């Protein structure tokens, strides 16, 4: 991983992630987590009517069909909204403030999602073009991290 990467902020050696406290099975999210391990960002698509959906659901909110397929997104988005967090009680994150979290709008699918932002705070602006990389979070899990598209290309070249 490139040393210039500034996300996750702070020390990545934080405590392990909190397990879901209510013990709810993660079946609905298993495909997504598996794909992150391959560096891919995936969502669901209804087999019956073709509507894509996020976050994962057992049935299609449009046609109620319970059969779905997984599709891989392009990992490109624009910035829809964001917050700059200056105080956090989550393990590992409290020492990492300030950091930005946003809602991104995928460019190839009609879906928005919450995402970590590796963008300099003054550069945050509505509509900013973003590209995704999968990286470990402070708390250890793989998460999609969004960088300004131009910055991500410069790193790749």
């Amino acid at each position, binding site marked *: 991983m490139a040393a210039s990467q500034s996300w996750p902020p702070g020390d990545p050696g934080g405590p392990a992630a909190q397990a879901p406290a209510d013990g709810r099975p*993660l079946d609905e999210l298993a495909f997504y987590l598996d794909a992150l391990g391959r560096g891919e960002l995936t969502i669901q698509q209804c087999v019956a009517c073709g509507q894509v959906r996020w976050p994962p659901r057992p049935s299609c909110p449009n046609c109620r069909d319970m059969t779905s397929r997984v599709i891989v997104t392009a990992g490109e988005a624009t910035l829809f909204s*964001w917050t700059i967090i200056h105080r956090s009680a989550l393990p590992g994150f409290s020492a990492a403030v300030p950091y930005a979290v946003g809602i991104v709008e995928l460019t190839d699918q009609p879906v928005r999602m919450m995402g970590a932002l590796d963008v300099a705070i003054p550069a945050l602006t509505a509509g900013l073009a973003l590209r995704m990389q999968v990286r470990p979070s402070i708390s250890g899990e793989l*998460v999609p991290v969004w960088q300004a598209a131009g910055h991500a290309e410069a790193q790749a070249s």
Partner: protein
Amino acid sequence: MSGSHIIGIGQTAYSWATEHGPVELAVEAALAAILDAGIPAGAIDGIIPFPIGPTAEDLISSLGLTDVSMSGTCQMGGASAVASLQLAESAIAAGSASCILAFVGKNGRSRQRIDQRVAQLIPGKQFRQVLEYPIGLNTPAQWYSLLCRRHMIEYGTSREQLGAVAVQMRENAQRNPAAMLFGKPLALQQYLDSPPLADPYLRADCCLETDGAAAIIVSSADIAGDARNRPARILATATGRASSPDDIANRRPFLDTGLAHAAPRAFGRAGVQPSDISAAMIYDCFTFEVVHQLEAAGFCEEGAGGWFVETAGIGPSGRLPVNPHGGLLAEAHMSGMNHVIEAVRQLRGTAAERQLPDLGLIAVTGWGDLGDGSIAILAAG
């Protein structure tokens, strides 16, 4: 008389810390409401606990109630207190109960603080835990600041407009000796200098956390006729859910709220318009949620909420007086039960220094979880 009426109101002191636990606080507030109503405790036959905190069993046991025929809880986060009025109204209309205690009691500041409470209450826990906690997102201030930011982008809502809400709520609290921030006025410059928590939210955009309890008693018309103090009549209640209530990001439209669905139903049932409302108790968990709900309830056009709070005015002499008690931002965080209590006081004409003149109808709103909404329209009984 017919319908349902709020006949009793009660509250404890609101504080930053108390040695009394939530059950004791809830019992104290319930006893105050019973005394205020002028009914025997044994008349209570229905219990509506807030979704977190003391239970129906706690209150039944402590109050020695022997014939409770109805209990239930509304799962709408902070919208639950106002939603309780809908549940109470339904139960009374169905004959399931005739005298219902609804309450909130918590050590919301000294023990179980907001991030711990929402970890229990919040909808879509698996999404929060797997998708959001690992990117450092886990509090209402953080989630809702994303709504506020988008409103700023779409409509130009400004920092100063958010500040107008914070300053007005604080000014209102200076007329309320029971408010936690009584004696602590806030100037706009102090607001602007407040440290950021989840930018665009500064500390001064965020509500209090409180130790205390608040309770109300809702009854049938028969019982209300014998109440010690003037009842408040429930003209209409409604609740609603935003599309994708467990996920903010994919809501369509993005700023959809449960209140936008509930408000037209409530106004329709009451046979009135938003312009008929004299004052509003708005669930002010954050400054922007006042702006947001003024729009969602129909008090102004979508996008005009910032103008409304800054120019039309939400102070005692403004276009629509809001939260004369100071609200969650400056009185206390009693999860909106304190808003119901303030509405009853105002309708009775017993709000002392902060009494609003010439009141007709009061609307009370609730906002909770990731955008659930509730509303009640009340009149003097």
